């Protein structure tokens, strides 16, 4: 009844090519953004910001980056954590060594540096694919954090190897409280998500998908695999790098480069499998879901009268993640994003399904 597209005709190409082709979607999305920028600051507590919302935004951006590479271009990567580390360390060095640099410029440059490193480690993808490539990205995952720990310059020869965020200023705006951090993260993530959405539905995205579906056929119809794969690596690593910088600047505050380890990579991979491979929305849904599970286990279960020890929670978390991955791969390979689509389909004919 409410959500019906019949009778809404598109009369121009721009209308046909819009991201949201029907007004209901546009209104819904506008409300969502409004809720994000205005509504959330009214209701959220500091705990909610630091425990869920800010890490959610950062990890969603990382998952989005990984989704560009794995979901759209079909190149599996287990090096997400390392590339987030590259972004974080690069951003810290830029902010520390050139204090007059604007924070946004720092993020962009950190992303670009991560992109360059990503392209470097993406080179093997030109010769190998599938799990061979996954092993190759493991090399990045083990090599890069080691490099940051061992080469003192990266952490400015801090004996403990911990880097701490300097104060954050953007155009005179001091980003201090969790709410301000949240708004900054939300702004950056929104802009980048919009860019990604447009990228995947235009030329580069189509090239990636062609390579993913069948690389030989794509090559025959004139797509250059070298360009397509390396742009996927570059764009993906840019997103992951910015996500790493945000994760470090806005969420962690201080970190050891060692912290950007393989667990983070697996987490991002789980996010896109559960959220939906090859879906922008899926990256967000998956990130939300994956971050919610541990919070549910540590805080939700005691409310329901079940008390697990810390170790038991960690093990249960492993089992839940593992089971969810297998479940989604078997039952709904397109993840939560597909469920969302099905819900919308149902809504179209609601309340008269016949």
């Amino acid at each position: 009844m409410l959500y019906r597209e019949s009778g809404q005709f598109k009369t121009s190409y721009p209308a046909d090519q819009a991201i949201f082709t029907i007004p209901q979607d546009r209104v819904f999305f506008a409300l969502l953004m409004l809720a994000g920028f205005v509504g959330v600051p009214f209701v959220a507590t500091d705990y909610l910001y630091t425990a869920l919302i800010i890490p959610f935004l950062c990890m969603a951006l990382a998952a989005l980056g990984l989704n560009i590479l794995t979901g759209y271009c079909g190149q599996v990567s287990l090096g997400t954590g390392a590339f987030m580390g590259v972004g974080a360390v690069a951003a810290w060095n830029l902010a520390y060594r050139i204090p007059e640099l604007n924070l946004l410029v720092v993020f962009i440059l950190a992303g670009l540096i991560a992109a360059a490193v990503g392209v470097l480690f993406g080179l093997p993808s030109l010769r190998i694919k599938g799990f061979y490539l996954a092993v190759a990205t493991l090399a990045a995952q083990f090599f890069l954090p080691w490099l940051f720990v061992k080469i003192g310059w990266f952490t400015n020869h801090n004996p403990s190897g911990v880097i701490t965020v300097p104060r954050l200023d953007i155009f005179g705006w001091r980003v201090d409280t969790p709410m301000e951090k949240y708004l900054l993260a939300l702004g950056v993530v929104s802009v980048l998500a919009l860019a990604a959405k447009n990228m995947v539905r235009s030329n580069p995205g189509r090239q990636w998908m062609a390579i993913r579906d069948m690389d030989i056929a794509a090559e025959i119809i004139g797509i250059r695999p070298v360009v397509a794969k390396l742009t996927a690596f570059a764009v993906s690593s840019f997103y992951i790098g910015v996500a790493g910088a945000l994760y470090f600047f806005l969420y962690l505050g201080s970190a050891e480069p060692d912290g950007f380890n393989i667990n983070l990579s697996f987490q991002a991979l789980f996010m896109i499998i559960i959220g939906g491979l090859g879906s922008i929305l899926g990256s967000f849904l998956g990130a939300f879901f994956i971050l919610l599970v541990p919070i549910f286990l540590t805080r939700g279960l005691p409310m329901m009268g079940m008390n697990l020890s810390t170790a038991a929670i960690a093990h249960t978390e492993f089992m839940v993640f593992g089971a969810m991955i297998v479940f989604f791969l078997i039952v709904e390979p397109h993840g939560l994003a597909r469920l969302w689509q099905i819900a919308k389909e149902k809504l179209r004919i609601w309340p008269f399904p016949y």
Partner: protein
Amino acid sequence: MAFFLEVLIGGLMAGVMYSLVALGFVLIFKASGVFNFAQGAMVLFAGLFFVGFIQKGAPIWLSIILTLGVMALLAMAIERLVLRHLVNQEGIILFMATIGVSFFIDGLGQSIWGSGVQQIDIGIPTDPILLMDGDILIQSFDLWAALVAGSLLTGLVLFQKTRIGRALRAVADDHQAAQSVGIPLNVIWVIVWAIAGMVALVAGVMWGSKLGMQPAIVGLALKALPVLILGGFTSVPGAIIGGLIVGAGEKIAEIYIGPYFGGGIENWFAYVVALGFLLIRPQGLFGERIIERV
């Protein structure tokens, strides 16, 4: 020179341990085309059950039989709950599914038996042996490990000649053709996962005796991946030789190159070597050439 030899032998012996894990990978990959990321978790799982049974008072031989039973059950469960539903999916989907399996059995094993470090002592002598007038020191435990790996390898090679072994190779070659001559695919998969479980038990016992049974073993087992790339995904002897190369290479690199970088290069050396190797010879030393048909 003696020092170099000692480092080399120590590395080779460490490599044997990687080979033990890599063998399990190769078996499953050969028989089902599944790249089994869960092999490392299976090593931990088998080891934890073995230790658990021993601590409950079972003698060693009984614990081995019981653990083998558990691993067979696990193989059946994986076939029934996971693989059966993913027949004909792309390799990469199966790969991701085994990551899920890996996390699940990792968590399961630890929730049953706890996550502390458990010592395994099955009576393998650990006294050092001196060679060349005492210049070279090797652990007798390492020799035992090499012996175990060698007999495992021989057993597996001989097994391939049996009726079931032939069926395994047929399935590996072509699922559909194998099915059409009457080889039951599902049964073969259970068998091969059970055998991989057995290899995991052997690896678990050896690793556990050396380092103590602990969750970190899952991470160590990841090193079997570069071993596979060096040796080739489809070659049983390749897994052994790849393991030896990686083990010796990383120890020598750590001792002779490591000091220039502040040490710790053992952790990534194998991966970077594998990365370089992929660029030159993607099928590995002994693997079958990857030919893609359109």
